[in-house]
């Protein structure tokens, strides 16, 4: 796999739509007419945090004993950041990266940053244009609230990169940061399910590792469910979680708790439900001999995260970029909470 192969995959839609949002602030006011009522389909919603409680104490861990086979491993991660508010809305940037390990060396391609000017007037255009052009869907959907747009755009980029990998790679391990769960049970055209199918068709296996899920049994956290002595091991918690959340969520992956190396840390692991369980376990065993595992986490994903993350320095640079190229200035809006509550403002929860 050469870097050039990935570098030729250009997310043109992100460049063009981002450019439009920065350039044509006024024109985009026209797009108010395009607003489609209804809620987002859920494909690009932020990762869902589960708080499952395991009542069955007889779950037995699956110890990963078999030596795996070395296969190419690909990790994808994306990040977004707010650049500040403008008179019309706010600016945000997203960036994604693909890191892969092949023949014991790591390589990467970093896409972005892509900068968007999100306004109340253009949020429907932004969301639907990206969604439609990146995933060949025709129907329009209602965009999420403006403050949530950056995460949704980020997730579109993430899915797009995942799609490129699923379609271009064969017989590889594809690591996702997150899960295989969507909010809407009855979504007829799930982009996620299409991604998984394409990966299966190319004999790829997708492993989604989530850092957010909180699962406990008899008051014990997931970390304590898996004994370090058994590592590397899996714990099949699919039934338990589905019993509790099955009514509200759609699980495309079979859910495990996984401890890839001895230590305190465990993660939620989703493996495509359509992949036989033995093949899924074999994929995890392949991961163990194909990638470095540090703190129970694959190095490719860790590097993908590092590569995509924005630093404060880059934020200042992007603010300067939009100011110089598009004349957009960051404005300081009065802090309503500060005005109302003064020193009793308290600590605000992070938006993302």
């Amino acid at each position, binding site marked *: 796999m050469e*870097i*050039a192969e*990935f*570098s030729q995959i*250009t997310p043109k839609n992100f*460049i063009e739509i*981002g450019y439009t949002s920065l350039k044509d602030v006024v024109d985009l006011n026209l797009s108010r007419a395009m607003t489609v009522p209804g809620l987002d389909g859920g494909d690009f919603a932020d990762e869902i945090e589960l708080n499952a409680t395991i009542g069955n104490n007889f779950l037995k861990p699956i110890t990963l004993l078999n030596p795996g086979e070395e296969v190419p491993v690909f990790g994808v991660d994306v990040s977004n950041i707010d650049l500040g508010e403008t008179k019309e809305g706010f600016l945000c940037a997203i960036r994604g990266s693909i*890191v892969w390990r092949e023949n014991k*060396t*790591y*390589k*990467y*391609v*970093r*896409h*972005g*940053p*892509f*900068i968007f000017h999100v306004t109340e007037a253009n949020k429907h255009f932004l969301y639907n244009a990206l969604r439609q052009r990146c995933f060949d869907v025709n129907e329009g959907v209602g965009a999420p609230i403006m403050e949530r747009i950056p995460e949704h755009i980020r997730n579109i980029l993430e899915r797009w990169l995942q799609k490129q990998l699923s379609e271009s790679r064969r017989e590889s391990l594809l690591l996702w940061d997150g899960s295989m769960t969507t909010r809407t049970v009855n979504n007829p055209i799930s982009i996620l399910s299409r991604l998984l199918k394409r990966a299966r068709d190319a004999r790829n296996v997708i492993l989604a590792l989530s850092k957010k899920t909180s699962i406990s049994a008899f008051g014990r956290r997931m970390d304590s469910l898996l004994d370090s002595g058994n590592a590397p091991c899996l714990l099949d918690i699919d039934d338990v979680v589905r019993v509790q959340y099955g009514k509200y969520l759609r699980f495309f992956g079979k859910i495990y708790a996984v401890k890839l190396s001895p230590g305190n840390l465990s993660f939620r692991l989703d493996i495509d439900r359509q992949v036989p369980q033995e093949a899924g376990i074999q994929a995890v065993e392949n991961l163990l001999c194909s990638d470095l595992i540090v703190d129970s986490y694959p190095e490719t994903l860790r*590097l993908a995260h*590092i*590569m995509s*993350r924005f*630093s*404060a*320095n*880059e*934020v*200042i*640079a*992007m603010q*300067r*970029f939009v100011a*110089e190229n598009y004349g957009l200035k960051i404005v300081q809006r009065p802090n309503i909470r500060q005005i109302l509550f003064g020193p009793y403002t308290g600590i605000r929860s992070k938006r993302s």
Partner: protein
Amino acid sequence: MVKAMMHIYKLDGNTMDIVSCPPQGVQKGDYIIVRDDALNRSLIVQVTNIGYANIPGVLEDILRDSSTKNMDGQNLDFLGVKAFVDVIKDARVFRCKIRKAIVNGRIDHDISWTPSRSTSQLINLTDREFLELIGLHGENTITLGTTKGGAEVTVNLAAIDGKLNIITGKKGTGKSHLSKLLLLSLIEKGGICVVFDVNGEYINLGYGADYKKATPHEKIIVLSPGKRFKVTLEYMGLGVFLRIMSSVLDLPDNSAWEIRRIWSSLSQRNTLTLKNLRKAVDSVLNNYVRDALIRRIDSLVSTGLLTDNLQEASTLEDLIFGLNNGGALIINLRGLPTRFCHIVVEFMLSKLCNLLERWVLRALFLFAEEAHLYLRKTYWEDIVTRMRHLGLFSTFITNQPDSISDGIYRQADNVFLFNFTNENDLAAVSKATMVDVETINVIARELPPHYCLALGRVTNDFPIIIEVKALNVKTMGETRLFFTNAYKQKI
């Protein structure tokens, strides 16, 4: 004037921090104008140190770059944001010292006001603009060299005339070169100079680099005490003689009284010669006094400075009057025993002061290299106070800044500071000169050879970095080497 992307960041006392992004081509020692149009005033600040701006996230960037350094990869930065990131990363903070202000187009000393951080305009001055602004030019000037930017630095003679100058810096940085430049410039303008030349560096100033006679040849008189420069006892005079006997040769008071008596007696009879003096001393009754006097007179005679032969005796007046329209007496102290050096210097200073007191001489410039080697401690203050008022204007040249007392530094009008790297040397200079410690510590440490930081009246109290101009005379300042090309060819 270049309008730059610079902004005031901090102001603390007379220290101003200026942020520059993208970084301007500003160097340490450069000047920036901070113009507050609302107040119709400007501050003239000098960059004394340059560092990177402390931007959040830079460490994160560096760590990320280092963790992916060994990875093959490509950044598809479609918008070209990387160039902006690089600019931000390279943003500089200029630590500046406020030197003076400009009010109504004139240099003003009141720097107690504060310019606006948000509306002030910051302008990077070119060297030429700066020199024009501070008005170093005049009718009677000498050229010291050029600034780093290549602008010629000419200073007014009035800033050197009647002033105390110190030239200091570590070995091999160009102190003597500047001293010779000053000397030759003063001579050219008609000044009379006296040089205490401990290393024999000045004796060939009358010759060009090609060993042919150069322009100042007729104006340079080299005096070799004890060889071609001798004086009579009568010319030396009782006062100078007694001072040498007591201060240099440690003659006890009672013996001094006896020699005074003998001197007066011989003088009254008009028979004051070395021979007669020695004979008279031989007849002193007190053994202790006689022995003390004999030892010291023999010591003085052995130097060869004194003579009874009027044909070979000289007078300073004659020598100096021979220097029409300027010139220099080079007192070659090279190779002389320490005590002899002390005797010569004592004689010269006493006689020169005497000539100045009597208005035989109007004024003269004294150049003293490594003066601590031959100048009595008590003489230092005498030189910078009493003798200065008489018209003896000194320039001290030393590579040991702590050999000059703080008191002398404080009275110095001009300091030419060459490179120092030793902490103790920097501390010695910085605690006593007329500029802040930070300027000395940062700028002096980084001066290349032949560059000096000029401080004081010579630059209207604006510290300026000057590359001292080359001389086309035989300067002889180079250290003698064993392994030369000639040696190599020989073997």
